[in-house]
Structure formats: C-alpha cells, structure tokens
C-alpha cells in the first residue's frame, strides 16, 4: 500500500532522507524509530506531498505521490503530533468538514457513529473542540480516518504528550484499523508502543533506514539495546 523507491530529500545540499526503500502492506503497522532529525517526519511529509522528493518516489496504492497528489490523498488519513482542529466548531462539525474535504458526505448519525467508534464519548460530540483534551482531538483524527475509509494511515508521533491511558486507547484503535486492512506508517519515539502495537519496526539514522524487522522477531529489551546502539 505504502512504498518508497530510493526516496531522497535534500535541503540545501544536506540529505534529510537518503535512498529510502520501504513498503507497508495492508494490515501492517510500520513504526519508524529514530532520533529527532533522523528523517521520520520527512518520510511522512513526502507521502503527503507536503514536500517534493529530490529523487525517487513515494507510492501510495500504486500511484506516485508527486504525480497524483490529490488522488493519493483520497486514500490516506494523516494524524500529526498535534492534531489541531477548529476550536469554534464541535467535534462533529470538524469531522463533517474534514471528511467533506475528501468529498465524502454522511448524515450526522453516521458521523456520530464514527466518533463513537473512535472512542469519543457521546456527550463530547456536540461540544466545541476548544474544550477538548489532546487525546480527544486525536480520536477525532481517527474518526476522520475511519469515515474517510482510508486505506493507509500516516501518523507523526501521534501519542507524544498523551497520558498512558489515552495512549493505550489510541493504540487499540490502530490495531482495530489494521485488522480492517489499513496500512499504517507511524513515526514515534515510544519504543514500548512500537513493540506492542506495530507489526514492523524500522530504525532510521541521519536519513538512512539502518534496520528493519518484524516486532515478533524481537523482545523489548533487545529492541531498546538495538535502538541505543544505533543512536550512539
């Protein structure tokens, strides 16, 4: 579902991403680990066409992102580290809006169902988002992905700053989505969550993918050791 072919991004001659080749299939939860500036966000931004690749391609559902930026966006959903919605609109209205931007239209009941499915309690649906906690906003983000029927999910450190309970709820939602066949690419610093939730892990350093493996092939402490080894 999500592929890259020698994906490279340079900023003023500095390589932020160096010939990345990865692939995330339907049902996978691929967690990208790495220090700040390792190229995780760059990868995600390239999938989103927020930035243009210097070389190589990012491919979503067999379409080249830079050639078909709008079509590829129809099949993906994106949740940034800080999901900021329109404060003056309710959760429901925000959902309606962002899903609508992808050209999909639902009744309020349907939208409410999606919010519920994303774990947002009923009473919050019609409250203005400016009163939401970060966890609640992330849930709206998931609801957008659900309602959009996204085939792929791009997450940029979605759990940072969430309390453990909210973070856990968020992970469960991801698993649920992946069971429905959604391919997920998540940049994160949370080794524990990556091991628990992910199906694959890739470790990046200075724009290079230095290691990738299945989560079942490694235990928590080995993962930590391996990660730290690459960081030094």
């Amino acid at each position: 579902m999500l592929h890259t072919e020698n994906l490279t991004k340079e900023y003023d001659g500095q390589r932020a991403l160096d010939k990345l080749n990865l692939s995330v299939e339907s049902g996978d939860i691929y967690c990208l680990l790495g220090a700040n500036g390792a190229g995780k966000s760059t990868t995600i931004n390239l999938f989103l066409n927020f930035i243009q690749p210097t070389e190589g391609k990012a491919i979503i559902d067999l379409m080249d992102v830079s050639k078909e930026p709008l079509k590829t966006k129809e099949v993906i959903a994106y949740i940034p580290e800080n999901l900021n919605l329109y404060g003056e609109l309710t959760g429901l209205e925000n959902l309606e809006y962002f899903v609508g931007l992808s050209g999909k239209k639902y009744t309020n009941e349907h939208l409410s169902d999606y919010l519920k499915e994303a774990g947002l309690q009923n009473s919050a649906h019609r409250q203005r988002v400016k009163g939401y906690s970060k966890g609640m906003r992330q849930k709206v983000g998931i609801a957008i992905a659900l309602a959009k029927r996204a085939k792929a999910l791009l997450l940029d450190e979605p759990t940072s700053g969430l309390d453990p309970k909210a973070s856990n709820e968020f992970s469960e939602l991801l698993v649920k989505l992946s069971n429905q066949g959604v391919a997920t690419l998540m940049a994160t610093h949370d080794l524990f969550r990556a091991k628990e939730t992910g199906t694959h892990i890739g470790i990046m350093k200075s724009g290079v993918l230095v290691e990738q493996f299945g989560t079942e092939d490694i235990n928590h402490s080995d993962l930590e050791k391996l990660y730290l080894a690459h960081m030094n």
Partner: protein
Amino acid sequence: MLTLNIITELRTIFRNYWLAAITLILITICLYAGWNGQNHVNRHEDSIVAALEEMQSADELMAARLDSIDQGLEIGLPTWQYPNSPTATGDGAPRVAAFPPGNLALISTGQSDMFNHYVKPTLTGDSFSIGFTELSSPVSLLMGNFDPAFVLVYLLPLIIISFCYNILSSEKEHGSLVLVASSPLSVRHWLLQKIAVRFVVLILILTICLLLMLMMNGVMINTDALLMILMVWLYAAFWFAMAYFINLRGKSSARNAITLLGLWVALVLAIPSLISQSASTFYPVPSRALLVNEMRNIQAELDKQQNEILDDYLRNHPELITRDADESTAYGWWQRFFASKDLVSERMAPLLANYDQSLKKQQHWVNQLSFLSPAIVFRNSLDHMAETSTAHYDNYRQSVMTFADEWRDFFLPMVFQDKLFTKDMIAELPAFDMERSGLKSPVSTNATILLVMVAGLMLASLVMNRVGETEHLMQG
C-alpha cells in the same frame, strides 16, 4: 465540497467575535459618516434655498418698485439705483447661479467644502474675478471630513486586512493546515473558497450598512446609487484579492500583517501623495501672485488710453453706438467702462487659460498614473458620483462664466441704447442652467481598472508557486 466549505467558514466566522465586531464597527462608522455627509449637504442645500427665496422676494420688490415708477410714485431710492435703470438692475438683481448638491452628495465631500455652491454674477463685475472659493476654515480643509468616502477609501481596506491577513497563516500556525493539506484538494482553491465566503459576508454587511445609510438620509436608490455600491464591491474585492495573494506567499501572520499594512500605507497614503506632488511639480500652475501683477499692468495701461479704447470698441460693436453717446453723459461713462472692461477680459483670457490648461495637464497626469493605486481610482469614482469632483466644480465655473456673459449681453444693449428696464423683462431675465455635457464619467474606466487589478492579482496568485505548492505553503 464547496457548500461544506462555505458552511464551515460561516460557522467559524459567526462563532467568532470578529463578525459581531466588524458589523458593529461598520454600521457605526457608516451611519456616523453618512450623518456627517448629510449635515454638510444640508448646509449647502439650505444656503441655496435661502438665496433663491431671497432672490424671489427681491424680484417681487423690484416688480412693485417698477410699478410705482410707472405710476410716477416716489420709491425712496437715489435715482441711479432705480430698478428701471439697466445698470442698477444688472448689478442689483443678480440671478442665483446655483450648483445644487447631487443625489449622492453625502457620499463624498470631495471639493465641496472648498468651493461655493452659488454665485451671483453681476453686470459690472468681472466674470474672471468671481470668487469661487468658499469661506471655510483652512483647518477644516486640511484635516478633511469624516465622510463615507473616508470610511470606504481608508477604513474599509483596514477592516478587510484585519479580517483576512491571517486566513491561511493562522491555520498554519495553529496546525489545522496540515490536516487540510492531507486531504485530496488544492489548498489554493480551498483558500479561495474561504476568502470568497468572507468576501461575500463582508460585502453583504457593508451593502446593508450603505443602503441603510442612504435611505436614512433620504437618498434616492437609483442606478447611480447601485453603481456606487458596485464600485465599493470592486474596491473591496481588490483588498480581498490582495489578502489572498499575500496569504498564498505562505509567510507568518505577523509578516502578512506587516506586508498588508505596508501595502495599505503605500497604496492609500504614499502613492496618492507622491502622484499629487509630482503633478504639481511637473505641471506647476503659473504664479497667481504674478498674475495679479499682469492684471494690474493691463489695468494701468488701459487706464492711460481710455479714449482710444472706446473708439476701437465701438468699431467692433457698431450695434452699440448711440447718437448722443459722448463723454459728458452717464452713458458715455458706461460705454467707456464696459469697453475697457471687455479689453481687460480679452487680455486676461489667455493668462487665465494657462491655469485651466495646467490644471487639465495635472489632471491628465494624475489620471494616467491612477492605475498605480486603487484608492485613487475609487476615490475619483466616488467624487464623480457624488458630483463633488474637481471636474464638476470646473464645469460649474465654466457654466457660470457663460451665464455671466449671457447676463451682460442681456443688459448691455439697453445700457448703450439708453433703454429702460421694464417689469415684463423680469420674466425674460436669463436663468442659470448648469451645462453638464462636458462631464465625462470616469466610472466605467475606473471600474475596468479595478477589475483588471483584481484579475491581475488573482492571476498572479494562480501562477505563483504553482510547483510544490503545498511544500511552499507548509514551509513558508
């Protein structure tokens, strides 16, 4: 998607204090400015009405006196002021040559605080020395008026800027832009829809405010009034397009605010003053002080050759020769008077034409450069529609000059042929009529200029950073 975007944008606007604030501000300043404008118009109207009423009662008195003279009664005036004497009536019963305020006069004070709204040309007065400037406090002229034109030309752009300077940048700073950008749509079009919604909302409020202001002041809502509102839309569209363009550059809210305000200062304050300065620098009006000298020299010269002048004059105007015209009679004196007066006018004409010429050149220069600032174009249209533009007063002046000649031509044969003014002639006295055929409306040209400006900005926005659009907008 369009409807959804509209609904959402409307929701955001309505739930924000901005809309309430803008509505309140607009309605207050529009009504206040309209009230000011109307007060100004009323003063002019009242002065004209008073003058006309006074003229009417003076006419009645004159008719009564003429009757009394016919009946050989004493009227209590020295004989040279008797109304049957054409010189006395030509000077003593002048017509009111009025320039009544137009339907939309309250919109723009324009030049109306500087110039007269009625004059009374007399038989012996020099038409070139009729004072057309109003007796107004120069401090008022310097400071200007808080009229609708001020609100529309100066304040409206600022309201639009404060409404739209961060329409994209705030989403970026706040973080919602990434979500939008991850949707399958063009951010450019999405922003265009958002700004269009704001445009329509503001236009709607503004139109209601303007209509309310016009109706409250008893202005007839005719095509001109609607045309005026259309011009306001175009001017507003320019500033919205500018805000759109600046937002698309992807800079921060603070940078956008500074850029837009800088543009406001440049377009509304600096460029007009620069152009105006350059107009008077490149096409300076000849010195009025030296004109006074010229006029005095001509007078002095003519004083010395009185007799020759009369001969020359009568040679050119044989119809005015009477048999008993000689210097010993009053009529001889009047003949000399008008003859030398005519000569002064004749000699002054080319000098005075210089002023009209250089003013025309200035106006031409200003018109040519007006495309540099939408404020000039817009202001010019407002002045024209309010009938308070320089061109209108110039036109009025010309009409008065023509009328002054007509007035003179009516009495002069009587003076020269020693005829008396009679009561039936009151009805035949020439009446002032303002000739408007020379006034060309700049509104359609100005509307085109504004349209081109808006289209140009939209085109520039379309072309700008087409490649890597999102990257550009995201990075700033």
